[in-house]
């Protein structure tokens, strides 16, 4: 049984009346990639900032390797690698100088630092341009270097805050491979993202976050069971309230998730034929303009949990 590296318990943080993080608890074990999934503004970055002790929480606790975090504790900070959402590099310096500087802050030096620098530059595909100032790099190259800095000192816990934002698919695959490889070496990884596909591909366990809450947590298959043996049907059109009120009692196996005058979101059993539903809609003079069917995935889980589509 892998040991728990990061333990977050009942974390709260409010900015005036806005509850940015509201009773968030989870743990990440060694070698595990734990995804924190949610739309922008869900509270993911605030949670990461509290784990880094850059932002004091209102209540709750965070511990790393069974030691409570403290902004003055440099030993704990050495056990942690952070890849921030924004690219945080010294653009005047080249990739080697950047890596050497950040490595030295973590106590690395000499041949060890040099070897790690070369190995990482090779892995992120920047070795050939390692002596160029970072200011000349493309956005994708900067992202890869941003990730490499977080991996350099081989931390016990790696916090990745949306590390693949704005990069091309090829570079993204390269980065995801590197993250998997890092986890296989035993590093606990907390990975925040708003890309559903990325979370599905990469994460061993996931927490879905919205408005500061964790709505659901578990492996991908566990989360998908929340939708059940059902699929999500989104029907677009023009619907009067009284029409829908009359329609709903006639569809006994259907669960209404959300409705307004332009869209109906329904959860339907796999066994139910779509044609059957359309026929009923026609009987009630409802004009259907488009139809969207979602099989169980994180998107449909989010839809089921929030009644909203997962949007950026």
């Amino acid at each position, binding site marked *: 049984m892998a040991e728990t590296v990061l333990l977050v318990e009942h974390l709260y943080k409010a900015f005036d009346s806005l509850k940015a993080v509201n009773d968030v608890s989870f743990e990440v074990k060694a070698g595990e990639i734990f995804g924190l999934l949610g739309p922008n503004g869900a509270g993911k970055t605030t949670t990461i900032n509290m784990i880094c002790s*850059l932002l004091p929480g209102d209540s709750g606790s965070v511990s790393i390797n069974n030691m409570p975090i403290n902004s*003055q504790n440099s030993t704990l900070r050495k056990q942690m690698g952070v890849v921030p959402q924004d690219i*945080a*590099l*010294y*653009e005047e310096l080249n990739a080697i100088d950047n890596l050497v500087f950040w490595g030295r*802050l973590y106590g690395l030096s000499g041949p060890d630092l040099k070897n790690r620098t070369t190995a990482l530059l090779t892995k992120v595909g920047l070795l050939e341009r390692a002596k160029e100032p970072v200011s000349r790099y493309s956005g994708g190259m900067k992202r890869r270097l941003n990730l490499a800095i977080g991996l350099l000192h081989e931390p016990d816990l790696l916090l990745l805050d949306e590390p693949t934002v704005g990069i091309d698919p090829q570079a993204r695959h390269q980065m995801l491979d590197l993250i998997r490889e890092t986890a296989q070496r035993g590093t606990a990884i907390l990975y925040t993202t708003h890309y559903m596909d990325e979370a599905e591909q990469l994460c061993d366990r996931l927490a879905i976050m919205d408005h500061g809450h964790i709505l659901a947590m578990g492996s991908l298959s566990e989360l998908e069971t929340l939708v059940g043996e059902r699929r999500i049907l989104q029907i677009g059109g023009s619907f009067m309230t009284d029409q829908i009120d009359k329609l709903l009692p006639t569809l006994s196996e259907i669960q209404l998730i959300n409705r307004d005058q332009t869209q109906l979101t329904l959860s339907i059993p796999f066994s139910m034929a779509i044609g059957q539903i359309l026929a009923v809609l026609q009987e009630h003079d409802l004009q259907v303009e488009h139809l969207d069917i979602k099989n169980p995935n994180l998107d449909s889980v989010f839809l089921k949990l929030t009644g909203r589509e997962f949007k950026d």
Partner: protein
Amino acid sequence: MIWQLLIKDLQRRKARPVGIIVWLALPLVLAFLVGLVSSGGSSSDQPQITVPLLVEDHDDSFVSQFLLGAFGRGELGELFSLTPVDSGRGRARMDAGKASALLIIPLGLGDSLLAGKSSTLILVKNPAQSFLPKIAEETVSILAEAGDRASRLLDSPLQEINHLNNRDNAPQDIDVARIAVQINRIIRRAEPVLLPPLVQVTEQTIKIKENQPTPSFSLFAYLLSGVVIMTLMFMLDNLAKDIFVEREQKTLFRLLTTPVTRRQFIAAKLLFMWLMAFLSLLLVWLFAIIAFNITPPSWLLFALLVVVTTGALSALAGLLYSFIATRTQASGIVPAFVLVFAMLGGAMIPLETLPGFIRQLAPFSPLYWAVYPWQRMMAFGDQNFGVILFLGVLAAFTLAGNGLTFIIINKRVRL
């Protein structure tokens, strides 16, 4: 950790050297230009200074004519532009800024002088000007002194002239001849003293031995003392912005997730500012010393002054930034403060050229305390100008200012 942060900032400056070269070169270029201005050019190249002097002559005697005639002869004639004005109009022209001074010769000046009584010349100076009224004041004082000495020396014949003047009939030739002989005798008696004069002024060019402190005043060093302090402040303003740069490019956020503490980050920034200012000030003065043959009277004093001056200036820049929230604010507010401090402290324009009320404000400008000791030491070759006081003030400001900056920025700096 502070060392690593310091090295990183040096590397960043080295990677983009243009900025730092400009800041290092600016005082050197200014020093060179100031040097050229203060040492080069023939007298014919110099602009002619003329002192506009208004005169109200209420006496209109031969004595007042003699006095005014002195302003029209020789070098005084070239220096002064004399304009007679009617009674009461002189003040109006002064108020309009059309003259540097107004000389009022009171009624009865001639009679008083002949009678051996005291009399007063009134000189009204234009408060809006500094140098030119001073020249007028000095010249009138010298002429008044000369008139006073002449009246004492020729007291007896003057009494006789006065007596003859007061008679109804014209003086006879015998009386005029007697007085002339009397004056001639007095002058002859005074001849050993007056001709040749006991005090002679001769112009000599002396050779200064190498490495020997120059005893004379150096205008170049005087002006450079101010210019370099002002330039340093602008350089420090630029360096202090780096706190905001690191915040904006998110490296500050990342640094604080590493074992680096907020305090170490601020300490490294302040240390870097001091180091750059130290190197800059040292380089400028070494250049001036080599290129313009200026030697400090004491190398120990020079070294101490470099250390505490740059420490105090870094603290001042840090303090200004302690109350700034964004880079945009800094770009607007800090240069304005620096310019005001430079103007009041004599860093931009020599204090002597400023009106008296501004000179009185000088000690309230932090830059005054940095400029003045450099002027005294490098321009006047003075090492006894209250050195302990100025060094002490600068050292105390270095400690207190940096300490305060450290505390405030540590509380205020946001991610």
